[in-house]
């Protein structure tokens, strides 16, 4: 009941509360600015300017995140959000992906003849939800953040409004996404019923005290189903290929990385906090991880559409990340975090190439179109090759260390069977990624028409993605260290956390009492 007492004593947010959600504030303000400017500016000239405002907003969010990292970690808004190394890591991924996607969208919007300032606004609002998800420690706030990010991406998926495939993809994403959300919410309700709270730490403490009821198990299972849908893990993956094929490519770059990173952050918090007293989680995650890797990779073998192929590959990658979830927290959490970062870099890059190469109406997306790209546009072919090699997991790219850490974390937890399945799957995966590379360099081009030169925005986006992919593959130490640092804050069984939480409440109460006395 300490929280409700605290509520009564302190009803006005403190300055520190606002700093705990600074990136979200910055993103929201810039999102609103984009919407306002869109209404007053001349439509024919406003596109680049609005994009620039959104870009400043994304970089502002990166800056705000860096500022948060300097500020003492802790809770904000009555233990609704928690800023720690863990949330800062994911904030950074979300903000960086947002910035790169906005850069990649500049010329895309022109080529597709889409005039809409709200596109950039929606990307920023989606990023608000994703950032909030990674710092929220309260299930209802997580639900709201999940919906902010999902609703924005539903609209973005249908942004090529006149194209039937795009609106179909938006519809499928919307229906299945809301379906999954309802499952997640039912899980939250059951968890609330089992423990009387929706705060992750309170739930964890209540479950630690023994007698875990059937309600709690059911709640966790429902939540896992809902979140599994959102990260496209098998058997909840059927929407992925359709949605990724129909949605605009820069939007796919966005929604295959940033929301996934945020949902994985939620899963990490939920699974390693709430679920830690429950050892049976292992086999459930084991099965989902093995299924995702196998289904994703095998279905990708027969795809001819490159966007669809990468959609199946993203299912497989969700499986690799889930392997880390089955491992021990001390090595599994940093491995999953590192994988998310590396995957974000390489996948955003790959989709940035696709969105540039696709041309008007995204005509060029099949394997035959990519034939001979090495001759037609060597630079584009080389960048795509780097991302594909990283997706395979070739050394000197981020993908290699990502897979390496995940599998070694699984080996430490003695999950030999899962590691064998994972490594076999990586070998299958190499085949279809190499198929694209072979098509680009070994096959004769179907048409000789030169590819449009890479424009500045897309060029910058590609450059950033390449640099990050190679950086993570050559010097992964710093990022991994930061990820490991966050483990101590997200400890299993809440050793540190549950000690800290009452302490924070006490400290705040003490200051409130002092203030009350001063009056």
């Amino acid at each position, binding site marked *: 009941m300490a929280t409700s007492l605290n509520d009564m004593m302190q009803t006005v947010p403190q300055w520190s509360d606002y700093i705990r959600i600074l990136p979200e504030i910055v993103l929201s303000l810039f999102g609103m600015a984009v919407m306002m400017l869109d209404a007053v500016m001349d439509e024919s000239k406003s596109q680049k300017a609005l994009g620039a405002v959104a870009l400043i907003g994304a970089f502002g969010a990166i800056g705000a995140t860096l500022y948060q990292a300097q500020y003492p970690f802790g809770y904000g808004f009555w233990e609704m959000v928690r800023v720690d190394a863990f949330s800062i890591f994911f904030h950074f991924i979300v903000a960086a992906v947002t910035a790169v996607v906005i850069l990649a969208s500049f010329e895309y919007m022109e080529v597709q003849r889409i005039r809409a300032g709200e596109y950039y606004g929606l990307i920023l609002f989606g990023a608000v939800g994703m950032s909030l998800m990674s710092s929220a420690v309260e299930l209802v706030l997580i639900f709201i953040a999940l919906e902010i990010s999902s609703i924005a991406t539903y609209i973005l998926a249908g942004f090529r409004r006149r194209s039937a495939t795009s609106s179909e993809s*938006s*519809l499928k994403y919307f229906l299945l996404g809301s379906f999954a959300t309802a499952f997640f919410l039912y899980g939250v309700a059951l968890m*609330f019923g089992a423990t009387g709270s929706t705060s992750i730490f309170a739930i964890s403490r209540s479950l630690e005290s023994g007698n875990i009821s059937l309600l709690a198990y059911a709640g966790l299972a429902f939540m896992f189903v809902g979140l599994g849908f959102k990260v496209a893990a098998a058997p909840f993956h059927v929407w992925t290929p359709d949605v990724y094929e129909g949605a605009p490519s820069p939007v796919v770059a966005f929604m295959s990385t940033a929301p996934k990173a945020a949902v994985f952050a939620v899963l990490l918090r939920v699974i390693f906090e709430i679920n830690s007293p429950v050892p049976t989680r292992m086999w459930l995650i084991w099965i989902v991880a093995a299924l995702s890797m196998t289904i994703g990779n095998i279905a990708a073998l027969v795809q001819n559409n490159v966007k669809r192929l990468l959609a199946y590959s993203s299912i497989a990658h969700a499986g690799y990340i889930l392997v880390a979830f089955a491992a021990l927290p001390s090595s599994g959490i940093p491995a999953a975090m590192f994988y998310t970062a590396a995957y974000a870099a390489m996948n955003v890059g790959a989709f940035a190439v696709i969105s540039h190469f696709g041309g008007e109406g995204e005509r060029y997306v099949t394997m035959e179109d990519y034939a001979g790209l090495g001759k037609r546009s060597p630079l584009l072919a080389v960048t795509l090759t780097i991302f594909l090699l990283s997706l395979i997991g070739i050394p000197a790219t981020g993908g290699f260390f990502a897979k390496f850490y995940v599998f070694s974390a699984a080996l430490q937890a003695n999950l030999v069977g899962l590691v064998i399945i994972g490594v076999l799957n990586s070998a299958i995966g190499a085949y279809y990624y190499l198929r694209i590379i072979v098509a680009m360099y070994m096959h004769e081009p179907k048409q000789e028409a030169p590819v449009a030169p890479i424009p500045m925005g897309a060029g910058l986006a590609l450059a950033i993605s390449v640099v990050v992919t190679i950086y993570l593959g050559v010097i992964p130490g710093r990022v991994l260290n930061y990820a490991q640092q966050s483990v101590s804050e997200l400890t299993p069984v809440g050793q540190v956390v549950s000690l800290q939480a009452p302490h924070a409440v006490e400290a705040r109460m003490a200051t409130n009492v002092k203030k009350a006395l001063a009056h």
Partner: protein
Amino acid sequence: MVPLFYYLVLSGILFACGVTGFLIKRNIITIFMSIELMLNGVNLSFVAFAAQWHALSGQVFVFFVMVVAAAEAAVGLAIIIAVFRTRETLNVDKVDLLKL
């Protein structure tokens, strides 16, 4: 007083009706209504649990869920209109340009 169990069973039935409707109905609007039914099943269990725990928070969550459902409805209906404009059908089986 009606026992908690009854509320939970009713909310479970509502949720299950929603899931069934989602899976077997073919009209997009009906499917969408099924999702709303699922959310309302959840709302009922939130309120029932709030009464059981004497925690007001459970009832407040229902408002959040309603607001989110309203936002979802606004976006969802707009998407359905966009689909109808390009395909002139509300049957999900006919919205099949992207193979599953």
